[in-house]
């Protein structure tokens, strides 16, 4: 519905009455004439519509800039925030990022080029590693059908070396980038704070009849590409009160609490999460793409109830519980009990998943995914496994999850039982693989046949075994 919105666009304050449910992409193209942001797929898969979104960081201590697919970003999300499009970057002419791409002839038809330039500009601005691999990974959310990526890769690598000495702390880094024109100085001067929102309630309107809760919107807008005017979503993902990761309690019973606004990127970056599931960060790249991870929420991934939701598979294996709010008040239940049937959940009415709870005690963890493409693809089958090993070397508290093998994300209880209390052996895992295949009833669809899903599920369990007990047994033994 129409709402007063105040935000910065390319450094300039904008105050409008805007349709809060409208995708920012349409608003940019139709209402402001900023057509460098383009529609390639309208489902977050191509990156042609990328812009930079400035928002409060997780800690609430300052601002962070993230890449955002504007086809999946509601105009209402911009209230009290800032957006930079390719035109804002290029206001004083081609930036060093654009020139690096230009020198490599990395723009052929050019349709995807602004999105690529935005992604690489973000790479230089963001925290994190600056090596060539990181530079290349920063464009994993951008499709290009012309170049075959080799020239884009060369440009990305060149940028990573040309900007290798960037300062680590944000203000100094931003100043350095401004000095070199990656961000025009006048724009950079606006990039360290955010305007006051025009709306008093930063979490969105109070629930109405047609008030869908939206986390990051990265799933919701795929299904609702052009929401009807008048809709008033509740933007759960932008409520600072709901974006937190904290440890509650202490000792063995300590729990990690993750708020509804926690993004996938927040999750993998969290030291507490990494302590609870050592090595979990290595699976981050298998989930969506950088710009989706920056905006998709854990709670949204769960509430969307896709049978192949990657984060859900991980959280199931991490023994997650949910705190739901709704008409009947707050209640807590196990994540596994949240799914009632295909796309049916325990949420009622306008209820939301307020908090996700995880045991904080460290557990060995593994995640596997079979998809057509390694990056930015939806799984045909995914699975996660967590366990502890007792002093006698036996596996304890084994949890196995799997997606894509039933109408909802599943706990594979029989597979887990086949491992519980036993010492890790090829034999035990073969039995678990057998049990897993027996307890699922997948269907065939565009991502793979039922037969394939069963076949690959067993092999992904074997992959868990090899990862968690390296040197313990061979592929041949597991597949014997």
């Amino acid at each position: 519905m129409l709402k007063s919105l105040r935000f910065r666009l390319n450094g300039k304050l904008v105050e409008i009455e805007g349709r809060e449910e409208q995708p920012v992409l349409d608003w940019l193209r139709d209402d402001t004439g900023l057509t460098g942001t383009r529609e390639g797929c309208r489902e977050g898969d191509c990156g042609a519509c990328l812009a930079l979104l400035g928002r409060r960081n997780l800690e609430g201590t300052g601002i962070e800039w993230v890449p955002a697919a504007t086809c999946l970003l509601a105009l209402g999300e911009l209230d009290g925030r800032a957006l930079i499009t390719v035109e804002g970057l290029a206001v004083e002419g081609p930036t060093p990022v654009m020139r690096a791409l230009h020198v490599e002839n990395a723009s052929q038809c050019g349709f995807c080029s602004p999105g690529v330039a935005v992604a690489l500009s973000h790479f230089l601005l963001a925290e994190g590693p600056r090596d060539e691999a990181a530079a290349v990974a920063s464009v994993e959310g951008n499709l290009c059908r012309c170049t075959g990526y080799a020239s884009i890769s060369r440009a990305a690598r060149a940028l990573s070396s040309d900007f290798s000495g960037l300062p680590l702390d944000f203000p100094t880094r931003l100043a350095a980038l401004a000095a070199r024109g990656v961000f025009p100085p006048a724009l950079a001067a606006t990039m360290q704070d955010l305007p006051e929102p025009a709306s008093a309630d930063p979490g969105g309107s109070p629930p109405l009849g047609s008030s869908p809760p939206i986390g990051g919107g990265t799933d919701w807008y795929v299904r609702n590409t052009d929401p009807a005017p008048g809709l008033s979503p509740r933007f759960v993902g932008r409520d600072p009160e709901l974006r937190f990761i904290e440890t509650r309690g202490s000792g063995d019973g300590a729990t990690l609490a993750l708020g509804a606004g926690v993004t996938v990127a927040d999750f993998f970056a969290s030291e507490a999460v990494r302590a609870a599931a050592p090595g979990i960060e290595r699976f981050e790249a298998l989930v969506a793409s950088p710009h989706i991870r920056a905006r998709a929420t854990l709670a949204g991934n769960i509430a969307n109830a896709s049978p192949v939701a990657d984060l859900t598979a991980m959280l199931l294996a991490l023994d997650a519980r949910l705190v739901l709010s709704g008409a009947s008040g707050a209640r807590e239940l196990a994540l596994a009990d949240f799914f009632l049937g295909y796309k049916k959940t325990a949420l009622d009415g306008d209820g939301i998943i307020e908090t996700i709870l995880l045991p904080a005690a460290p557990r060995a963890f593994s995640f596997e995914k079979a998809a057509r493409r390694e990056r930015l693809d939806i799984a045909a089958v995914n699975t996660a496994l967590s366990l502890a090993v007792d002093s006698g070397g036996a596996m304890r508290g084994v949890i196995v999850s799997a997606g894509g093998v039933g109408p909802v994300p599943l706990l594979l209880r029989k597979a887990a039982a086949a491992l519980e209390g036993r010492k890790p052996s090829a034999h035990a895992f073969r039995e678990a693989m057998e049990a897993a295949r027996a307890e699922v009833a997948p269907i065939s669809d565009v991502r793979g046949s039922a037969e394939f899903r069963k076949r690959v599920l067993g092999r992904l369990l074997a992959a868990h075994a090899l990862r968690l007990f390296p040197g313990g047994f061979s592929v041949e033994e597991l597949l014997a």
Partner: protein
Amino acid sequence: MKDRSDRSALAAVRFDSGDRPESLRNLTGATKYLDDLPEAANLLHAAVVPSPSGHGRRLRVDASKARELDPSVLVLLADSIPGENQMGTAVDDEPLLAEGEWHYAGQPVALVLASSKRLARAAAALVRVTGEELPVVTDPREAFAKGQLILKPRVQSSGDLAAAFRTEEQGGAARWIVEGRAESGGQEHVYLETQGAIAEPVDGGLRLISGTQAPSGVQKAVARVLGIPMRELEVEAMRLGGAFGGKEDQAAPWAALAALGAWVTGRPVKLVLSRRDDLRMTGKRHPYSTDFRLALDAEGKFLGLELDFYQNAGAACDLSPAIIARSLYHAAGAYRIPAVRAAGYMCRTNLPPFTAFRGFGAPQAIWAMEAAVSKAAEATGIPALELQRRNLLREGDLTHYGMKMEDCRAGRAFELLLSRNPAARLKAEIDDFNAAHGDRKRGSWVIPLAFGVSFTKLMMNQGGALVHVFNDGSVSVSTGAVEMGQGVGRKVLVVAARTLGVPENLVRIERTRTATVANTMPTAASTGSDINGAAALAACEEIRKRLLAFAATVLGAPEDELSLGNGLVLRGGRDAGLAWKDLVAKAHEARVDLSAHGFYATPGLFYDMKAERGSPFAYHVYGAALVVAELDTLRGSSRIVRADLVHDGGVPIDALVDRGQIEGAFAQGLGWAILEDLVYGKDGKLLSDTLSTYKLPDMKFMDFPIDIELLDDAANAKAVLGSKAVGEPPFQYGIAGYFAVLEALKAARPGAGGFFDLPLTQEKALRFLDGGN
């Protein structure tokens, strides 16, 4: 061109970053594609209502709900078409809007016009289309069995086939005969910019901006639909956001629908397809099912080849006859085979009309031939590399359609690739890795290339150009070429600048307009720069001739001593004291014509359709590629480890452009071979109908070293400035990816024979690893 990680390689390429303002416009977001243009206040947005299923009759359309949504919504059906309801060019089998019957899911049925895109699409979704369902055929062999052929089969043959397949036991020379079936899937273009057009009434006619590779084709198609002369229509193509063949014939329906809307309403109309509509309504690369049979003698020499191509043509003819022709021409790949029979069957199914896509029938043929080589290597025990080497095309060879191979570089390219990757070293590289790893296996494959350049339809090998030199010395060049990222504008610009001897920044390449250069052919078949570059060259030469004659009078020098270069008139190669700008200004004063039209018709082409003999190509592009793949034997997934390409690019007009074409085509080829899975249901509905279900190569998929070496001393006498066409040939290198993964699979399951079912997905790999196929 060197290793991609070697940035110093740039130094070897002549390049001035000021050369390509269009690239900087792209990168800054300033480039306008047709959907980026400002919209007139009275512009109507259009959306298309598709057929409800794969096949049916007694079509009924109920638009009442759409009109209820908003009374201003207009819904146009076939009966509002003033001219012919027909888009077919080779065969009249493709109505613009379905009437009575429909033949594929996604076939346009109605056009919806509304004041906003949102409203148009919402209204289109409310139009109810019903009818009586008819049986759906999606498999080309089933269609063939039912006699559903678009045109009669086409067969090329050469040599004594019966003798070639006579075994040693039968007194012949054939030691081995291998046969099998090679399946290849379709491929979605995924041009990042979807199909679209804007039509605007102007002075009693229409002006169209169409996202097309064929502005004249759109002009002709729209004139037929509206029943008006072509002169009443001007069609302009702006820069396209990718096309790859998908906008050759299949841009026309959307332009015709926009034109219909504008004609009926008198208002500008814009039609831009959503990605989902584009995916389900447009044709893609043809799926083929091919039977192969290859005879070899004791030395592994190819004696005879039989290929039967069952082409899944979809529901309408479209470009299928020209595509099957290219399949037939490329049946023997880069090999010399004395006896060949190649037959092509254009099978009519209930899928969208399949259409042009980079390679245009050649990939499907080269794939099947290479499957035969793979099977022959298994049967004979002779390494595939050795079979390939012994059977490569040589200078003076006659192809099975009677063309003499001249300036044949197949062997040169192959040997250069092997000198970079000696067979023994390559084998050791793979074997050592495989011996050391249980959970991973590697495989490699080399593919040789000989790709014929010219349109397979002879009359299409023509093009025009119009060049104006303005009296300030700046130059405007128009041709029929459409820029879609392939760099044809850049190449034409270089041709013009070099011919007129002026700095490149004096030259501007205009958008492609039918009223400027008429009767143009699609920018396709890799010929864009050959034909349009040559036409521009002809026009520039005409102007140069006039200017030099004029300069001779001004300077009082013999004309044959004068030339143009570096923005100057040169005499004996040295500054004659007359700058280009002054020459032009003076010539204008003296009433010298500073404009010229150029025309080019590719010489030397002929083909006898009855005898299936002739010389249909101006020349061939040669090359060879090595692809090394690695299989995860546990998960069944695979990745490419490295690739080495030796490519015959002639003398590139712009080496950076050609490198981009080679890399991009290779990625598309690899995608077709091992990743992209176009899935239709038995009901004819597209299942991979979003970019979340249809996966094309991304950065990670292509994140491996690619070495490219261009053949040197490679000037081509048959094309402009010694260059060679580059768009399609390197696509074929990606086919090696299939066989590299297959070799890795065979290493993981010793003794098992290969299978030929492209793309080689994880699902198929796992089935094989578990003992299947």
